[in-house]
């Protein structure tokens, strides 16, 4: 339900999450590589299963009757919520910061220390002074896969989110600290009722789709209706909208979101992509797949855009070219909002990371995510620095060993703690992660608001402690064969288990270190690399003993509920703690930020004590950038996936 995604990290080529200042579809899995399947298998089929579902829903849910606006205004006590111009906010922030060095110095630097990294980000990440930016510039961005769909509500892969972030229309976004706000580009005012049950948005009256039709509140209400229709195979965005009672447009500009419950997470649920009503009104019910009819096929190729850019050409499997649309900034001959700095954005599809790096080195692309080994070894020479530089920043993506509590080995918390005490965390950080990652001790990033004031530190290797805990839990070497064992069900079970890992040398190295550490205390860990989908399947069926894996954090702490709540489908380790379950439920209902933070901090402490995971490290985002590129600023979700994100990128005017 909560909006922004937690995401499992299974070592595919890196995701490309990019979002422009206007639209950040919080409800969707912005980092996801695999396109979600439509809910229907074939064009005719949706109807059978889904219509039945739709009928069932309609039968159980009472029809939603929105009250008249004057009644709502009379009864609700409206509280103003922030409406911001993301670029202006960033400009104000930067005005208070002195760059750590000049642009020329930053461009001459080699990024081989934290200090150099800070200088590069500080000098090259700044917004342009008036007249400094080349407003005709084009950026060639790297993307690792093609689009499955350009329809805003059908998207699910990271490439699709990248494009939608630039071409889509939206009311809400969040800043680089992941705080939500309404975008001043599209919204005049945003208010929430004191009881938390309604959100009222008054839209600007100077918005048009790329075909010239005005964008109105009716588009928002229409989109909600389509998303919630069971016949439409919406993959990613329904999990937030289904928490609402309804969305109603009172006039062209006023739209009200009605919530089922006053939840802290409602702020994410109202953020969904928007369809042009006038385009789909006559077609969607005839073809609810939104993909098959000739009209929908044509729209896939040339969608009507509501964001600052529109798709001008597409070569399947090769590239997607976007162009800034004049009707975004100029309506009826009047300039109504700032235009983005870049005129063209060309997404070049390169699947192979080595080829992508060669493309960056030869100047064919202006930026790319670097693999950690590329950062360490392939981007340190003059050939790389001839045209490029690089930067990194912490990202909210963490890795862990997961211990399946349902197995006899890890049911006892003392054993799980012993695992954490046995593992040489420092050695992993130094020798395997090469000092590039920050240690991770818990569920929430240490500098985030939900992490609480108490800083957790990872369990440091202490073999005596580990052995004492194992002895206490009854795992001793009864038969003197050098391996610990325990009598379970009348049978002596040796402590020998398998740790699953996907076929990535880096992760296998971490598992091998665990294996060596455990050998020292009489435990046999077999490292078993498996294909990624097979690994997923084994985790989902809880058919494993231990594994190494990763999650990307969502923007809201509630998004990790389904990793920890009893019986949730992604609670692969089978963790169950009634207090944690209760705290998640309370956290969602607590509207006061600091009281809410206390609950998540407490959850984190409980998890820390129980160690269902041995948390390993937070992974940074690593990027290579052309020296001609400026304005990249990192959030915990990388340089694009927030506001302004890619909207702050620019290239200097050639003298």
């Amino acid at each position, binding site marked *: *339900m909560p909006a922004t995604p937690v*995401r499992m990290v299974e070592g595919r080529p890196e995701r490309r999450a990019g979002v422009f200042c206007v639209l950040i579809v919080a409800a969707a899995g912005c980092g*996801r590589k695999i396109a979600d*399947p439509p809910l229907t298998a074939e064009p005719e089929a949706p109807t059978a299963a889904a219509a039945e579902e739709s009928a069932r829903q309609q039968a159980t849910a009472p029809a939603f009757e929105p009250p008249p606006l004057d009644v709502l205004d009379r009864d609700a006590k409206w509280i103003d919520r922030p409406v911001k111009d993301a670029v202006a906010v960033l400009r104000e922030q930067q005005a208070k910061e002195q760059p750590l060095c000049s642009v020329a110095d930053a461009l001459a630097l080699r990024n081989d220390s934290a200090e150099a990294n800070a200088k590069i980000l500080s000098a090259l990440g700044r917004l342009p002074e008036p007249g400094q930016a080349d407003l005709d510039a084009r950026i060639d961005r790297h993307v690792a896969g093609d689009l499955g769909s350009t329809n805003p509500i059908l998207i699910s892969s990271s490439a699709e989110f990248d494009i939608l972030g630039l071409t889509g229309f939206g009311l809400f976004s969040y800043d680089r600290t992941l705080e939500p706000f309404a975008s001043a580009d599209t919204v005049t005012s945003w208010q929430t009722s004191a009881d938390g049950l309604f959100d009222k948005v008054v839209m600007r009256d100077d918005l048009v789709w790329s075909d010239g039709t005005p964008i109105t509140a009716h588009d928002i209400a229409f989109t909600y209706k389509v998303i919630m229709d069971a016949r439409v195979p919406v993959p990613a965005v329904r*999990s937030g909208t289904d928490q609402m009672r309804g969305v109603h447009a009172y006039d062209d500009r006023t739209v009200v979101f009605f919530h089922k419950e006053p939840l802290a997470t409602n702020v994410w649920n109202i953020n969904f992509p928007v369809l042009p009503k006038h385009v789909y009104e006559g077609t969607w019910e005839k073809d609810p797949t939104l993909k098959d009819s000739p009209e929908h096929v044509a729209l896939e190729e040339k969608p009507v855009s509501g964001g600052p850019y529109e798709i001008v050409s597409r070569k399947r499997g090769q590239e997607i070219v976007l162009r800034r649309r004049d009707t975004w900034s100029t309506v009826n001959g009047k300039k109504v909002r700032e235009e983005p700095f870049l005129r063209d954005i060309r997404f070049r599809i390169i699947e192979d990371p080595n080829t992508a790096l060669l493309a960056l080195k030869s100047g064919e692309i202006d930026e790319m995510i670097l693999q950690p080994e590329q950062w360490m070894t392939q981007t340190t020479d003059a050939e790389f620095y001839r045209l490029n530089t690089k930067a990194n920043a912490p990202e909210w993506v963490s890795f862990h060993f997961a211990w399946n509590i349902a197995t006899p080995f890890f049911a006892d918390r003392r054993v799980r703690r012993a695992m954490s005490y046995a593992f040489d965390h420092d050695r992993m950080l130094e020798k395997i992660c090469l000092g590039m990652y920050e240690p991770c001790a818990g569920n929430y990033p240490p500098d985030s608001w939900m992490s609480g004031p108490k800083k957790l530190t990872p369990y440091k290797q202490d073999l005596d402690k580990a052995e004492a805990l194992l002895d206490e839990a009854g795992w001793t070497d009864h038969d003197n064969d050098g391996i610990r064992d325990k009598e379970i069900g009348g049978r002596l079970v040796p402590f020998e288990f398998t740790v699953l890992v996907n076929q990535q040398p880096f992760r296998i190295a971490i598992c091998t270190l665990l294996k060596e550490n455990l050998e020292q205390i009489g435990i046999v860990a077999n490292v078993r690399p498996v294909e990624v*989908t*097979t690994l*997923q399947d084994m985790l989902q069926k809880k058919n494993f003993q231990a594994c190494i894996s990763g999650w990307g954090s969502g923007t809201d702490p509630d998004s990790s509920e389904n990793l920890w709540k009893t019986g949730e*489908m992604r609670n692969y380790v089978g963790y169950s703690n009634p207090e944690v379950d209760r705290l998640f439920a309370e956290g969602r209902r607590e509207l006061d930020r600091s009281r809410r933070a206390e609950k998540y901090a407490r959850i984190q402490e409980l998890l820390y004590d129980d160690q269902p995971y041995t948390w390993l490290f937070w992974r940074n985002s690593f990027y290579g950038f052309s020296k001609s590129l400026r304005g990249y600023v990192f959030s915990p979700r990388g340089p694009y996936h927030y506001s302004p994100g890619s909207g702050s990128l620019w290239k200097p005017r050639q003298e």
Partner: protein
Amino acid sequence: MATYLLRRLILGSLTLVAITVIVYGLARNMPGNPLTAQMGEDPSRKITAADYARMQRAYGLDKSWPEGYLQWAQNLLRGDLGRSITRKQPVTTLIGERIGPTLLVSGTAFLVIWLVAVPLGLYASARSGRADERAVSLVLYALYSFPTFVAALFLQIVFAVWLRGTAWELPLFGMSDLPPDASWGARVLDVGRHLILPVTCQTYVSLAYDSRFIRANMEEAVRQDYVRTARAKGAGPWRVLFHHAFRNTLIPLVTLLGLSLPSLIGGSIIIEQIFTWPGMGRLFFESIRERDYPTIMGLTLMFSVLTLLGQLLADLLYCLVDPRVSVA
């Protein structure tokens, strides 16, 4: 001839059924299903058990695999290959988009291979054992054992990075750089330049193999009595080589040709990945990882049909190259 063809077609259809049953059965029994990856990706999209069951129903995953197969076969008879679960497009569209680029690389490579391999093989057998033949053999063996992905990267670095800005520069990746509205001639040239590196990579290994294959067969043929007879009656060395020996090596060659037909369409995962070439190999690979059953089956069907056709074609060609072979 007609009965022979009919018999072969019936046999072929039965083989086709067997292949698709086995592949479908295997695919459905691999761990995981199309929903697996989705589950692992985005836990904030809470999927309830009921939701999961509903999606399984929608994809027909709630049915046993034999039932699923029958459904697939039924749709196939209606001319419907189904829709890709992860890519949201009809499988026929997906294949249609990819087949052109794949054929462009593999067809060009195929031509180059045979245009070079046949003369090279003949040359090698004519000069057998001499220094120049040894040198060529050595080079061919070296090429045969040189991994494609290393060669590709090497070629990319040399031609797309080091030689950038010179007349020798070649494109690093992709199929074309020009906008769709460029002139026809310019686009052909552009695609041609993009083809050079992938085709080179796809060519050199087979070139080594096929020329050695021809040479080996020729070695066999030149030891035959009829060749000695031809020499004895005073035929020149090239006439002996072409007219007497080479013609008799055509049968194994035609078999090899027939069998390489499916690989023409199959594409190459490695080359397509490295050069970002929008072909079939990559699609097949991805669809297996994603457990995208309709795509896996669509591609399997196509590859199987082509393999069977290739064999049939080879058998028919035997009659052409060797009149002693009869279809009766």
